Structures are given as C-alpha cells and as structure tokens.
C-alpha cells in the first residue's frame, strides 16, 4: 500500500552497537503467525527487551530511560538473515522512521523502503563517531534530511552524506509505492510476455 510521505525530521537516537543484528532478533519467528499487519511494534527485539517472565530487561537500550526517538543507530550488517518483512513492520510500528548503520542486508533494505522506513548507510568511521556522540550525550539530536541526503548534528558540526537511488528517494518523498509503479507498467509487462522467446 502507499505510505505516508517521508518528511525531514530531527530526533534523538536509540543506539544499538551490536553488529550483525539479524531479523530473528528484530522479531522472533514465533511472532510471525499473524495474518494481518498489526501490533508488531510490541514484539520488536522481544527476546532482548523482555526476560522469560515478560519483565523489561533494564540494560537493553530500548528500555534505557536515556534513549528514545525515531532513529535507530545500529552496528554493522543490520537486518541480515530471514526475509521477513515483519522486521520492517515492527521497527516502523514501534516508531522508528530511519535506521543508521554502516551496512544493511539487501532484503531488509528493500523491505524498509517498501514501508517508508529509511535505511541510511554511513561509513564505519562515521558510525563510530555517531555511536560515541550518542553515548556521551544521549540527548543528541540528529536531523535527517532526505532531500539533501544528509544527516546533521548542527551543534557538533557533524554533517554526513548518504546515497540513495533517485527513484527510491522520490518514492519516499512522494509516498509512492513500487506496486503502483508496476501497475502503470502492465501494458509493457504484457508486451514483454508476448515478445519473449526463451533464448538466452
């Protein structure tokens, strides 16, 4: 479905320095039994957030009073593993609108874009600077400017650029989804089917 237009915003950050956070951690498989997309935010990082009795684990960053906001700052290779889109749904439903990391898994990247969640890839050095900044000053505000492809911490003179392909950028800004685009291509798709000889 089409989603809300992505607007630039400024927010505090939740840091999660662990590397290789896989989609089984973002949302464990046993919560994938729903047939509708709702309520996944409650299960986000479930087994890191709650103990076996359902009590919050105080040391986990999402439960840490110092951290909140619409930006998740994550260790390298975020979103690896399973293709479950529930991971993107859970992050969005919880309230995240952008994830900053030095590396994202491919399928997760597509799933994020298809749900209006912006994956922002920075260099490893930049990620280290941001991690330290947020650890030192948990109230740090990061501005996410999609139009100019920048993340900015004004008072620290931090301004990092990120890449995004022009099509995906326009989709996010205008709130378009790939489905609508593909539907507008149906005539071409049918032509392709007819013209197709199976020689490679």
């Amino acid at each position: 479905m089409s989603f809300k237009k992505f607007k630039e915003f400024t927010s505090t950050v939740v840091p999660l320095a662990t590397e290789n956070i896989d989609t089984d951690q973002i949302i464990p498989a046993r919560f994938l039994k729903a047939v509708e997309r709702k309520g996944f935010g409650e299960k986000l990082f479930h087994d890191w957030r709650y103990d076996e009795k359902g009590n919050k684990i105080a040391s986990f960053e999402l439960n840490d009073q110092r951290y909140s906001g619409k930006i998740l700052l994550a260790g390298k290779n975020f979103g690896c593993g399973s293709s479950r889109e529930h991971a993107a749904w859970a992050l969005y439903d919880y309230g995240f609108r952008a994830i900053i990391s030095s590396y994202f898994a491919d399928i997760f990247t597509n799933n994020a874009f298809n749900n209006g969640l912006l994956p922002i890839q920075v260099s490893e050095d930049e990620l280290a600077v941001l991690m330290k900044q947020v650890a030192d000053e948990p109230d740090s505000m990061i501005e996410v400017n999609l139009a100019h492809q920048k993340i900015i911490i004004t008072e620290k003179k931090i301004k990092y650029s990120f890449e995004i392909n022009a099509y995906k950028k326009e989709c996010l800004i205008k709130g378009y989804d790939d489905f609508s685009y593909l539907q507008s291509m149906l005539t071409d798709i049918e032509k392709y089917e007819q013209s197709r000889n199976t020689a490679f």
Partner: protein
Amino acid sequence: MENNTLFDKIWDSHVVKKVAGGPNVLYIDRHYIHEVTSPVAFGNLEGRGLKVLRPEKTIATMDHNIPTENQHLPIQDLLSRNQVETLEENCKAHGIKLFDLNHDNLGIVHVIGPELGLTQPGMTVVCGDSHTSTHGALGSVAFGIGTSEVEMVFGTQCIMQSKPKKMRISINGNLNKAVTSKDIILYIISKISSSGGTGYFIEFAGNTIRNLSMEARMSLCNMSIECGARGGLIAPDQLTFEYLKGKDYSPSGEDWKKKIMEWTLLKSDPGASFDMEYSYEAADIFPMITYGTNPGMGMDITGRIPHNNADESFKKALDYMGFEAGEKLIGKPVDFVFVGSCTNGRIEDFRMFANLVKGRKKADNITAWIVPGSKSVEKEIRKEGIVEILENSGFALRQPGCSACLAMNDDKVPAGNYAVSTSNRNFEGRQGPGARTLLASPLVAAAAAVTGVITNPVELLE
C-alpha cells in the same frame, strides 16, 4: 554477449524496463509462496480490488508452521492453524495450486520446487523466504523477497530490483574425507564473513563444485544468503539435465529437446568479468562446525575458537553460547540433534546420516529430530530401508516441515541446551528462546547423535 556472466544472461533477459536512476522491472517466471509471508500480501492485493495476475506461475505449500507429528489431526496451535487455513482460502480464491497437508507433494518450499521440476535453468525464481537461493543450484536466478514484493508478483508478475554486483567463488580439487557441501559453504562464510556477500549474486564454479551432486549443490546455494548474498547459482550441466528429466513439471518430448539446447547456453562466457572473485582449495576444507551466533562464526571441527577480544559482538556471541575463546569444541556434550530443513532435508542427507549411525546406538543424552524435507523424501527414506536403520539405532522419523530450523511449531530446543543442527542459522533463539545452535553437516550431526558429544565424523567412518 561474449563477456557476460551466467547471472547477466538470465537477469538481463528478464528486465522489462530499466528505471532511470533506479531499479529494474524484473519479470518473474516462478513464484513460490507459503503460509507465513503471504497472508498480508493477499490482504493488501484484495484491498486494492485486484486478483492474482498469473496464478499459474505461483505454487503454494505449507511448511513453516506445521507439526512434524500427527499431521492427519487438526493443528493444535490455533494461530498456526489459522495461518494454514488462510493460505487454503487465499489459494482457492485466486486459483493457485496448493500442496496442502493431505497432498503427496507437500514439503518445504525449497525442497519440493527442485524435486518436482518446477524450478528450471534460466528461470527467475522468487519466494517470500530468504533461502530461495537454494534454487540457484539448477542454474536459475533465485532469491528471497519481502511481503510487499510478494504482493507485487501477485499483481504484476514483476518486482522492482536493483541489479546486484557479481561474485565468483571457485573451489578446486578433491574433497577430504567426511567433507560435504555443507562444510564447503560454512568454510566460505567463515572466510568472507556473514556480510561478505552483501550486494552480490554469487556464481559457484570450479571442478569441486562441478563434481557435487544436485542435492549437494542445493545445500551450497541454500546458504549463499548466509554470507549476505542475494543468491548463488551454478551453471546447469549434464547432471542438472539428468536430474530434471522426467520430473512431474519438467518439459517433455520436443519441448524437452528444445529446452536442453537453450539450457546448454547457460554459462558464463570465457571473458566474463566479475566484480569480486575468490578461489579456494578443496584440500583446505575439513568438517566444519559453528561456535557463535552467526553462520560466519564457523571453524574446522577439530579447531579452537579464535580470540577476538576487541570485538564486543564476538564476545556477546560467545557468552550466549557459553563458550570461551581458545577452547576446543570436540568432546563437548550436546543435548539435541536436528537433521532436516531446506539446507539438509533431502534423501542424500538421510543416507549420509544413516550410513554413519548404522550399527551404532543413539546416545542417551541426545534428543534427535529426524525430519524429512518433503513427503517424497519421507517416502524414499521408507523405500530404501533407511527408516529401519534409524529405528534400530534408536531414532524416530518425523513428518516433513521446517521444524526446528526456526521453531515456529512445537519442535523447540529448550533454553541453554545445545543442538547440533543441519539447518542454516545459528542466530540467538533461532531454535527456541535461549537455544544454542551449532551448525554442521549431516555427518557431524550423526557423529554427535551416537556419541553424545561433538565428534569428528572422520573417526567414525570406515
């Protein structure tokens, strides 16, 4: 097309349109669906007032949620039952062929696709499941997609994808004793890490790969996603054609002859260039096992866990596993053994396992789950007398499904317990909250199952 890779040839011939500054509109030949990642896609499609555009190109099975015992009875878990019933209703409403619990073709999606001849060389194949990479073993471009993309295939038979970069991994030479394709892929991931393939599509090449059976090639391609790659593929050859000949959905007659001519062209040109190349010697690969919480944390089973003190994530993984840097795994007690999944749930895997446990007894401390990947595999296990070998050694055969690979059904490893598993992921909690997974081949699993501890299978083979 003199300098194209196999991947280029298949991908480029499926591009309907290149979007300026953006992804390709990619046409999909074969779409597999299962109960977990399809319901929201059907719901959204119906919300748009649409039907599935090419229902004959989509095939459905139920695998993730289903119990591996008493499949003739109603599913006890109400949420699982609802998901399975929702799939039945959706397939009926949209005219999609479904292999349900009563159907002889039921099985794990990545086991039944190849075994029925539904996946063929040169195809683009997708499924809302990351291990769709398995199908690359037949020389197809196959990869996992999200639910939004499942909906796109339903509505338009296309998805929007940026073309991945190209990587070639070559393995040459004869394999050492007790080394399987599972060990090859665990070795590769331990070398290039669990993110080393991100952004790439891999072609596996070299004479070691060429000499692998079709099923061994599937186990290899299956785990290409575990190094982050979109998928992995192997050029089809005579073995591929022999494997496909006469299968239920394979072409036949004149059509077969025509297809063989087309498929023979599916290989990388001699001058093809890759964005990244790796080459390894088969002689350097020994039976592997993982010690951490991502598939890149693997080592020779006789080795010692490496030191990586500076890395907090590494330390966190060892803490979860209850291991220490520098220690050996050989001789450590194990609680569970799981043989099955889309990685190692095919007949050759059960033959390997049975060959090692034959004449030996299951160790008392081991709970074993032996789960065929499909009803067809189950039937073959019975036909070949493997089930008697298993039972004489104290193992029971269960019914097909994804089972303990991701523990969505009742096959869960209890917290703190160790499982030697032939599946594909050792992530925290993957086989149940708190479960500790050690990924390995069916031979390593068999050695652990009869000794009760982590054992080098080389010592138990003639």
